[in-house]
Structure formats: structure tokens, C-alpha cells
């Protein structure tokens, strides 16, 4: 069994941690930015979302709100897909090499 420090020096471990950290924080900040933009528009100028789209009774805010809900799910989905495709395999190799 390799020591904790040995595992930390394994290039695959470094690669896994770097890749996951970069993706995780990027997506976290992206989510936060989208949500804050949404809330701040509502706080400072709600009329932007109240504007009607053409002659329809639909307002800009409706598709935007729906978009935030859907994009939240898609962001999680992207991360999970990425993790299933690459991180799990890397993790398996690291665990294997550490035995």
C-alpha cells in the first residue's frame, strides 16, 4: 500500500485533482454568476423581465426563468457526464496503482 504522499505525487492523481477542481469551480462560479445576474436584474430593474415579447402576452422573464432552471440541470448533467467518462477511470487507475 502506497503512502498518502506517494499517491499525491502520482501524476494521475495530480491530473485528476487538477481537472476536477478546475471544472468544479468553473461551473460553480458560472452557476453563481447566472443566478446573481437573474436576482440583480429583478432587484434593480424588474421592468427588463416585464417587457412583452412582440405582440404576445409572454414576457422576457418567463423564458429567462425557465432557462435558469434548465441550465442548472444541464450544468449538473455536464459535470456528471464528464466525471463518469474520465474521472472514474482515472480514479480506478490510481486506486489500482496504490495497492
Amino acid at each position, binding site marked *: 500500500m502506497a503512502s*498518502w*504522499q506517494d*499517491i*499525491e505525487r502520482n501524476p494521475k*492523481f495530480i491530473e*485528476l*485533482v487538477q481537472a*476536477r477542481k478546475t*471544472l*468544479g*469551480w468553473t*461551473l*460553480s462560479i458560472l*452557476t*453563481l454568476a*447566472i*443566478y*446573481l445576474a*437573474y*436576482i*440583480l436584474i*429583478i*432587484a*434593480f430593474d*424588474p*421592468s427588463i*423581465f*416585464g417587457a*412583452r415579447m412582440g405582440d*404576445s*402576452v*409572454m*414576457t422576457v*422573464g*418567463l423564458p429567462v*426563468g*425557465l432557462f*435558469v*432552471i*434548465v441550465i*442548472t*440541470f444541464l*450544468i*449538473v*448533467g455536464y*459535470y*456528471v457526464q464528464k*466525471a*463518469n467518462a474520465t474521472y*472514474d477511470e482515472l*480514479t480506478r487507475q*490510481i*486506486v489500482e496503482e*496504490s495497492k
Partner: protein
Amino acid sequence: MSRLKGILATATLAALSTPAFADALTGQTQKQEVNIPAIAMFVAFVLLTLGITYWAAKQTKSAAQFYAAGGGITGFQNGLAIAGDYMSAASFLGISGLVYLSGYDGLIYSVGFLVGWPIVTFLIAEPLRNLGKYTFADVASFRFEQTPIRVLAACGTLVTVAFYLIAQMVGAGQLIKLLFGLDYAYAVVIVGVLMIFYVMFGGMVATTWVQIIKACLLLAGASFMALMVMVHFGLSLTGLFNAAIAAHPKHQAIMAPGGFVSNPVSAVSLGLALMFGTAGLPHILMRFFTVADAKAARKSVLYATGFIGYFYILTFIIGFGAIALVATNPSYLTDASKGLLAIKGGSNMAAIHLADAVGGNLFLGFISAVAFATILAVVSGLTLSGASAVSHDLYATVFKGGRANEQDEVRVSKITTVVLGVIAIFLGILFEKINVAFMVGLAFAIAASCNFPVLLMSLMWKNMTTKGAVVGGFVGLISALIGVVLSPGVWVDVLGNAKGSAPFPYANPALFSMTLAFVCIWIFSKMDTSARAKLDKDGWDAQYVRSQTGIGASGASSH
């Protein structure tokens, strides 16, 4: 005043409540006639879940079974159970009721509920599963001195659970009074006793299956209702909106944000409480220990996010459907000349009346039973997490120094469950008139200011020490509590001080208390030169490798 109330309510949108809901829960509800199909379907649900509890009790021999269902829940099942924990009756009735009252504003609430889930996925779920066994304190205390961190985590858990639990009990009592025509006190006792049964005998296995069944029933019921609304308007959203705009006294204004989130600081503070409170709710965090590994934990959040997002879209359609179909039908109104606001039982009954309008008495009974089942499931999850904090963190680790025998630990859990159940019944009756919205807002703010910073920093920052965690955690906990008490919603509305005299001018303290917690964790860790601080930092490598790879993690059912 109404603006203040609006902001306060926004603060609480966190899980369950709306201003209308709060009003409905502060004594204005009147008893309905006894609804036979609703009671029949509710009894069927209770019998089914008690059967599951009996089956679960036979399986629940070990502590791992009791706390974490032996790690044998799949990602999909856990996703449903998390959704079940999160979609409370009040978010179903409350948000659809808010949409009924003010249209678009309901959607702002829904969005706020959902955006915390990516954070849970990216930063919390996998390390949590890799490091922990039964409670999030296992993770937060991984490399630190056990006693102080466990005490801190148990305080954070119990305070969060207590406020959340009272809110649910009061909500349950009021809703049952409305739905079934039972007395408030009976309703609270029924919920409390059933909850004790599920948790005490069935542990996590029974609690999980109660959540799953309830989530399926709620999703099916809400889907059917939304579909019937759409069918009624020829599957045309524009048709639905046109009818709603015509029926609502605010007309086109219901299609735009209406000022619930009006102060930018309050808005951001609230947003943070919502987003990060989710990642600090002990009963949600506990769910990640019921799956086999980090991969299943990750998948379960994806499923949960999908179900919850879908559910919130449904509540929006249901709310607009209620404007179009309930507000225009005199049989659902106490006074037809007053229109929309005169809805029988208050705006929280919008979805219930809509069920009758689109599906008749039988469907009304179904939806009523689902609403009650929902509360029952949520309080079970909360009670289990509170009981685990007492037995696993306080009893086994702090009092017995980690040498508690497993049987004793589970016994302490069961005793705690009964005690918590009795306390919840008692407080539920005592706080009959309390503003539920306020209690829930408090629970989320505390979770975001105490549990979340300690958990996140312990996972992310090598140089964090025991001292930093304890000081930061307690500062977050206490400042969140003080911030809420001094905020207009409590200082003015509850304590009756003069308007405008609130020492803390914002509706939600999270922006300040959460920041304070992070800053204190950082400063006190940096200043900590004790021998313990060195041990804390030396423990990082083992924690880091295990959190990233799962090497050495608790197996699926090995405990």
C-alpha cells in the same frame, strides 16, 4: 409594511413558505368539512408505509442499516429520496399559492430553491461520501480534534433541525385542519406519532422508502394536474396565460416580477442563504451516506436536480391554472364578488381547489393525502438527522470517546427519536400561531452560516485548524441567530418594536453571517500555532487522498 413582509417572505422561500402561506398559518385557517376520499387515501398511504417500516425494521439490525440504509440505496432511488426531502408540502402548496397570488414572483422562489444543487454536486457530494459514514460531522471532524467539532456540528444540526421541524409541524397541523377537518392538536399528534414510528423502527431504510413513495406520488399528482390544465387550454401556454391575465385583478402585471426582491442587499443575502443553505442542511447531507460510492452520490444529485426542477415548472403551471380555473369559479370562493383573494382556506389551497376543478373529488382526495404524506416524509428525514447527531456525534464520539457499542448507539438514537418527536409535538402545539416562514428562513440561514462554511473549508483548505473551525462555526451560528432576531421581520413584526427601528436592516443575515464565519475560520486558523494545529494540518494528506479517490472509504455495507 407589505414590502417588508414581502422581503421577509422572500427570505424564507428557502424551503417552504410564502407570505400567503404564513398568513394562512397564523390562525386564519378554518376547518373544512370532513373529506372522506382524502382520509381513505391518506389511511392507505399510512398503512403502506407502516408495512414498509415493518419490513425495514426486520432488516435494520446494525448501526449502518439504521443510519445509512447499509449504503444499499441506488443513485436513482437516492435521487428520488433527496427530491422527496426537498419538495415539501409547503413548497408545493406554498409556491403554487404564491403564483396564484402574484404570478411571476413564484418563479423567482423556485429558481432560488434549485441553484444550490450544482454547488452540492461539484464541491460537496463526492468528498462527503468518500470521507463520511453516518453524519456530516464525520467529514467536518475528519482530521480535527473530535470533541469540539462534533459538539459544533451537533449544535448546527440540532438548531437547523429544530427550526425546520417546528415549521413543518405547525404547517402540518394547519394543513390537516384545512384538508381533513381535524383539530389542530390532533393533527400535530398524528404527525408526531407516525414520524416516531417510521424513524424509530425503520431507521434510514424506512425513511428512504417513505421519501421515494411520496416523491413519486407528488410528481405523478402534480404532473397530472398540470397536464389537465394544459389540456383544458388546448395545450396552449398562450391560452393559459391569456385566461389567467383576464381572471387576475393585476392582469398583465402577473407576467413580470412584482417587487418581492426589491432591496439589492437583501436580495443577494437571500440568494446566498438559499444557494448555500441547501449545502448545509443536515438531513440532505445525510442522504449521501445511503449510497454505495461517490459515483452513486454524484448521480443521485443529478436525478434530484432533474426531479426538483421539473416539479417547480409544474407548480408554475398549476399556479397559473388556479388563477384561470379556481379564481373564476364561485364554488371555490367565499365571496364571488371579491374574486381571486376570497379563495376558500387562503391562497395555499389554490392547488387543492385546482385538483377538484380538473379531476373531481377523488383527485382532490388524492392530492390532499399526498400533501399530508409529504409533510410526514420530511419530518421523518429531519428527525433521523437530529437523532443521528445526538447518538453518533454526541453520545458515541463525545461521551464515549468513540468506544460506544453499536447496539447502545442505535438505542440512543431511538430514544432521541422519541424525545425529538415529543418535543416536536409539544413545540408544534405551542407555536401554533408562529410565522412558519420565519422559522424556515432561520433554518436556511443557519445551515449556510455554520454547517456549510465548516464543511467546505475542511474539505478545501489544508491550513484549517480545529480552533479556526470551532470559532468560525460558532460565530456563524450565533451571528445568524442574532441577525434574524434583529431583522425587521422579527424585531418589528414579531417582537412589536417600532417600525424602522430594527438594528439589522436586511431580511436575511446570510450575506454577513456566512462571510463572518469564513473570515473567522481563516483568521483563527492562521493565528493558531498550537500543537493541535500541526496535527490538524498533518492530517490533510490522508483526508485529501481519500476525499478525492475514495481509498479507505466506508464500504457499502461493511459496517
